[in-house]
């Protein structure tokens, strides 16, 4: 019995330590600026102060809007294109597919920053410099390897007989895709959409280099700039961080179960 109590005490303390950073974000967001002092960092706010959220909302609403536009557009595009690619690679084995696939996988391991400058120049040359569309383009291109991989492994499970049956019924490439493959893809789309949404929503480096004008900044860049100093009043950035965490949190609450199951069902095996 005493062993049990000890075990739970240890676990409890470990959990507290583990949750400390999240706890700090939340309590700091609810404190008055003048109430944020070092010795009381860990304490609950004496007065719950909601004003920071209103301020953060005014300051960050346009950036959140940018992030939403960017993330949703890039996620949908990379998911749709990845699904088509996966279909081709899984069901229309063309000559050279065995070379194309591993090369594509390499794309997932590349640290973005290596070719960021040529990419930046390219985006500027095609007239998308500084705009959100440039950033969307880059996210789609860099997202395609992983979305294609997930869909290819997912579609490999669809029996070839179904494709063949569609073909016998006279359906062509896109007919088979839209009538047989796409309707079966919902779990695959859930995995890919959550994955891409979280990635793009949280992404920092592309955003900070490719988008120059503050009006087009996504939330990550704005938050990092606001919280960059050492002795800033932390209530505002923390309230902003909480606002920025909400979309990914909601996505996980509603779709998380399918996401984890999809990942484990082998959709990401190499």
């Amino acid at each position: 019995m005493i062993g049990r109590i000890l075990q739970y005490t240890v676990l409890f303390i470990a959990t507290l330590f583990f949750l400390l950073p999240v706890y700090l974000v939340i309590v700091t967001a609810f404190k008055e600026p003048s109430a944020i002092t070092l010795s009381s960092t860990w304490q609950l706010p004496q007065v719950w102060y909601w004003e920071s959220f209103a301020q953060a909302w005014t300051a960050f609403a346009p950036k959140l809007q940018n992030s939403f536009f960017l993330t949703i557009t890039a996620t949908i595009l990379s998911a749709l294109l990845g699904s088509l690619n996966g279909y081709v690679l899984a069901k229309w084995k063309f000559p050279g597919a065995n070379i194309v696939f591993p090369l594509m996988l390499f794309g997932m391991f590349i640290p973005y920053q290596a070719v960021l400058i040529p990419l930046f120049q390219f985006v500027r040359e095609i007239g998308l410099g500084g705009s959100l569309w440039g950033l969307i383009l880059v996210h789609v291109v860099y997202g395609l390897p992983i979305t294609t991989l997930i869909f290819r492994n997912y579609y490999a499970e669809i029996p070839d007989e179904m494709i063949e049956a569609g073909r016998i019924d006279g359906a062509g490439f896109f007919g088979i895709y839209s009538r047989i493959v796409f309707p079966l893809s919902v779990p695959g789309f859930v995995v890919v959409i959550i994955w891409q949404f979280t990635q793009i929503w949280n992404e920092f480096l592309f955003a900070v280099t490719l988008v120059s004008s503050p009006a087009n900044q996504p939330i990550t860049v704005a938050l990092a700039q606001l919280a960059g100093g050492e002795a800033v009043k932390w209530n505002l950035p923390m309230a902003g961080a909480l606002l920025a965490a909400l979309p990914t949190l909601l996505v996980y609450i509603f779709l998380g179960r399918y996401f984890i199951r999809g990942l484990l069902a082998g959709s990401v095996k190499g």
Partner: protein
Amino acid sequence: MTHHRVLTKTRPQALRPNSFWLLGPAVLLLIVWTQIPFALTLYHSFRRFNLLNPERQGFVGLENFASLLTDPIFWTAILNTLVLVGSVLLITVAVGLLLAVLFYQEFPGRALARTLAISPFFVMPVVSALIWKNMLMHPVYGLFAWMAESLGQRPIDWLATYPMPSIVMMVSWQWIPFAMLLILTGLQSLSKEQLEAAKIDGANAWQEFRYIVVPHLAQTLSVVVMLETIFLLTIFAEIYASTSGGPGLATTTLPYLIYLKAFGEYRIGVAAAGAVFAVILANIVAIFVLRMIGRNLQGGRT
């Protein structure tokens, strides 16, 4: 001949390249897109391209690779990367496994506790780095320093004194929930009957864990390790926002070195060559880790 063809027709699509080429071009273009990230990197890795000296461009063969291989910083960065990835993998899988086993049991408030346990996953990496750096580990303003002083100890400047362990802790903290969630879902597919049977056969808790739970999780663990490896090998924002690779070179990993080459020295060719090495390293690590898991875990199956 026709008869033979019918018999061997197990993979119909392979016999139908014609219809593919009819609608091919649009589709092929899509496939080409997936090659851009690596192709672009490879292209630049063989060229000289320095923003400070843009006139001197051109093919330089393996010069960029040689320049990196002879640079002692490169090897330090590789070592740092392996230390970071290895430590974070070990910690996240171990703690994730522990938490998953814990959350597998029924106890009051489990749903709430589980939601709390995955909350680090929702803090943006950049924000997380800034919190750890300025609110927790800072030698003057940080909570750890305050705790140390309250206990009569001298505060430690964590990021300066123990840079790599601090980064490992920050990154592990973020990735433990991910490992836990995947492992927990893997556990839930374990049949209770099997555990019952083991108990009847007189297995103790450890034997049950070692010979039934762990082998059952082999596949889950390899998925966790592979996905985490992909991400950990390219970790950048956390280091950029907390230590900037320092002090000295203590936390300069390969991705950070690539960043320094590209944005500090404007040597795009060298940075691209670094990225090619990163891809090679990723493959070596992935193969090595997956083999190790396969051997150790599946070996436990009797």
